[in-house]
């Protein structure tokens, strides 16, 4: 985000009744909070009143304030593609050819994975949504918009007053001051422990079978940890003494590799890490570091929001494992999977000294699409195949991009070693699948953060015509009145046609053997050879 834009966003003024320190001291939440910034910067907290049905903030829109709910109740929700049952009346596309294809089991890829109803959709609030019902209620004492306020991230959800409400709207400098207060932090921790922690723990698959009373014990015994952006939670090679669950912010998981660091993943709210070392009684096999949101990273004068973690210590972990022996099996399987992924990624650690390769970002690609321009007749069959292979009819491939020798590197996800697109999603809808491809969940709110983050223009925003919410009629009334902003676009990224037995449709359907998906190890080695050839004048660059 540009400095000017950040400045403009921070210069926002509040509506409502501007408050002075004396107005706030009566409230529990402000007890122990240094209100001096409010003296210095009057107008950083306002009391807002909303009537029932009024929209407080809208998903995807820019926001710079946090809200503390004083009285009343609000409904928080996101728009998303509703499940097949609700779309069952939608006519199927493709006509008779598609019908014949379906008879013979030829189906396009369902572009989003299946989910359980309990799967968590993280939002910027003290409550979370679930895949089964992407709407929730909040009441007095709840806070929302913290990440928008501190990180200038887009609003992750729409909030509508369910009853007449009173709330405090807080600007960044005041919210930062509040966060510096131990009392405030403790209150927020208690609130989290009381309202959300249980859901977060339950959402970790390995705790799914833990009985309620044991989960309750775990909830009381875990430690809530606060870290600054850039803090290392643990280093590769450290003794494993705890596992962590992310409550707020993002964590980068990386490993040492020849020539530098290799990013394995960016984890976000609701994700967990550190269980492998605990389970195996070994040292850490990766470094985990708290990262800043891209909107505020390297912006002078802006302190990135803290990263909040739930620490499950070695003792609690061992107790759980002992009590639930089946848990060990599950954990072993997860750990095995993660190690296998790490080993597979380690194979791509071929380092090239070619500046050209670095310039084009080829080094990042773990599975790059290339088009041999000496073979390609520019028939666009690859693009047509991409459209045809996905049930949303959106191409993930644009046949444009930089060239290296006779190869075109088109705009299509290359499964980066450092997938920076995953940083900063306000609803955690972008993630890496087990086979390393990047996927975008259907609760994407179309804020474009990932598309802007991708250095290779490989994430496309596509228009949507049909979205809904779990609010039904209530939402329709708001939408008709123009009160809620329709989510009009979602992000799409190449999924490598992971569900197609034929492999990527673009490659499979190229009649000229021009489209390639290459293993980066093999290809970068070839690139090095080619690069030497370029320098010795054998081929033109």
């Amino acid at each position, binding site marked *: 985000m540009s400095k000017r834009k950040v400045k403009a966003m921070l210069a926002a003024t509040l509506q409502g009744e501007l408050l002075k320190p004396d107005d706030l001291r009566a409230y529990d939440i402000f007890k122990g909070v240094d209100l001096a910034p409010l003296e210095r910067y009057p107008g950083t907290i306002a009391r807002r009143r909303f009537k029932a049905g009024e929209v407080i903030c809208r998903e995807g829109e820019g926001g710079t304030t946090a809200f503390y709910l004083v009285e009343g109740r609000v409904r928080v929700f996101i728009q998303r593609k509703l499940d097949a049952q609700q779309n069952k009346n939608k006519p199927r596309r493709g006509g008779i*050819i598609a019908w014949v*294809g379906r008879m*013979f089991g*030829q189906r*396009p890829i369902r572009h989003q994975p299946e989910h359980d109803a309990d799967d968590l959709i993280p939002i910027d609030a003290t409550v979370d949504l679930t895949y089964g019902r992407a709407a929730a209620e909040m009441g007095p004492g709840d806070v929302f918009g913290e990440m928008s306020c501190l990180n200038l991230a887009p609003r992750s959800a729409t909030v509508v007053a369910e009853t007449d409400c009173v709330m405090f709207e807080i600007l960044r400098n005041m919210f930062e001051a509040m966060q510096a207060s131990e009392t405030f932090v403790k209150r927020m921790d208690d609130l989290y422990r009381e309202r959300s922690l249980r859901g977060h723990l339950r959402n970790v698959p390995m705790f799914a079978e833990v009985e309620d009373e044991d989960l309750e014990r775990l909830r009381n015994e875990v430690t809530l940890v606060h870290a600054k952006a850039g803090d290392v939670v643990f280093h590769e090679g450290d003794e494993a003494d705890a596992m962590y669950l992310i409550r707020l912010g993002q964590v980068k998981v990386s490993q040492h590799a020849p020539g530098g660091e290799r990013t394995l993943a960016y984890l976000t709210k609701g994700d967990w890490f550190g269980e492998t070392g605990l389970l195996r009684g070994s040292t850490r096999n990766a470094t985990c570091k708290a990262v800043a949101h891209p909107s505020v990273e390297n912006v002078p004068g802006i302190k990135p929001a803290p990263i909040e973690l739930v620490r499950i210590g070695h003792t609690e972990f061992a107790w759980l494992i002992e009590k639930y022996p089946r848990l060990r099996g599950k954990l072993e399987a997860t750990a095995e999977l993660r190690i296998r992924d790490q080993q597979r990624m380690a194979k791509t650690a071929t380092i090239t000294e070619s500046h050209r390769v670095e310039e084009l970002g080829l080094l990042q690609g773990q599975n790059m699409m290339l088009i041999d*321009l*000496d*073979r*390609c*007749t*520019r*028939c*666009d*069959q690859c693009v*047509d*195949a991409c459209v*045809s*292979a996905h049930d949303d009819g959106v191409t993930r491939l*644009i*046949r*444009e991009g930089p*060239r290296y020798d*006779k190869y075109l590197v088109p705009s299509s996800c290359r499964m980066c070693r450092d997938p920076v697109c995953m940083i900063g999603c306000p609803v955690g809808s972008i993630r890496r699948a087990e086979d390393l491809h990047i996927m975008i969940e259907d609760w994407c709110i179309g804020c474009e953060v990932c598309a802007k983050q991708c250095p290779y223009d490989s994430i496309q925003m596509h228009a949507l015509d049909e979205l809904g919410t779990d609010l039904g009629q209530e939402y329709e009334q708001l939408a008709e009145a123009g009160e809620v902003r329709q989510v009009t676009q979602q992000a799409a990224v190449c999924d490598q*046609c992971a569900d*197609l*037995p*034929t492999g990527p*449709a673009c490659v*499979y*359907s*190229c*009649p*000229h*053997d*021009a489209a390639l998906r290459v293993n980066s190890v093999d290809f970068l080695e070839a690139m090095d050879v080619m690069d030497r050839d370029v320098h010795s004048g054998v081929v033109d660059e």
Partner: protein
Amino acid sequence: MLIDRKHTPWFFVTLLLSVATVALYLWDAPNHPSGPAGNTVLGIVFGSVALAIMLFLVALGLKRRVPHWRLGSAASWMRAHIWLGLLTPLLVALHGAFKLGGTMTTVLWLLLAVVWLSGVFGLLLQQALPTMLRHSVRQETVAQQLGRELDSLILLAEGKTQTMGKRIRVVTSGIVQRCVGLSLHETVPPLEGDALDDKAVAALVKRNDPIPGAEPIRRFYLDEVRPFLRGDTRAKLNDLSSSEAMFESVRTSSPTHLHKSVDQLETLCQRRRELLRQRMLMRLLMTWLFVHAPLSWALVLGSIVHGIIALRY
């Protein structure tokens, strides 16, 4: 499709089939006192095989409509298409005992010849044109964007403007404005579209004080660059060597500090030439299909009718 080592098996299969069918024909010929013909057993077999191959060949067009179906990779289909397509005229010739036959079969022969030759022509083009395209166009764009990209060049030169009542507001300034000092902030008659028309540019040029030394560039832009960027096919800048000479001459007659703008204008002209070349080569790569594909269907339908008539009567 490039003919490479992957085609070797197909080459040998086609060669083998050709030799085998000719040998079969020669072995069978003495059995027919009036000479081999399409109505002999072997003649019917050759005809049926040729028809089956033709059906397979046109099926490639259908397969393209369902690119991700698991029917084999498109490249394998294309290899089969090429080599079986090359074999077909031989089978048809053996079927008709190297005779044209009646009117219908003559028409079918004619269709086959055009389809076969257009296919071979397309294949030959595919051996050379992609590489030519790569070398001559440094930065290609997708076909759908070509028109827009060509239109954008004049906007880059002159800037983008918007009519606001009787005034023109500059949305983005162009190379020419920056170089020769054409200020667009003055009141000029309202204009349609984004780029300025000739009349407006002439009005603006008259109205503004020229930047010292920019006159040769201004004149060159109005006389040569502008018509070229607007699509004048007779413009001298269409030719690379003329273009280089003309720009060199403008550089010589203008002060050094303006050379950067001249270079930028030259890049725009070069870009236009490349895009035009891309369009021409891409059309060449595709146009033959407009003959090949419909006539292939006509040939298949005609052959089916011919088969039904021949077997029935």
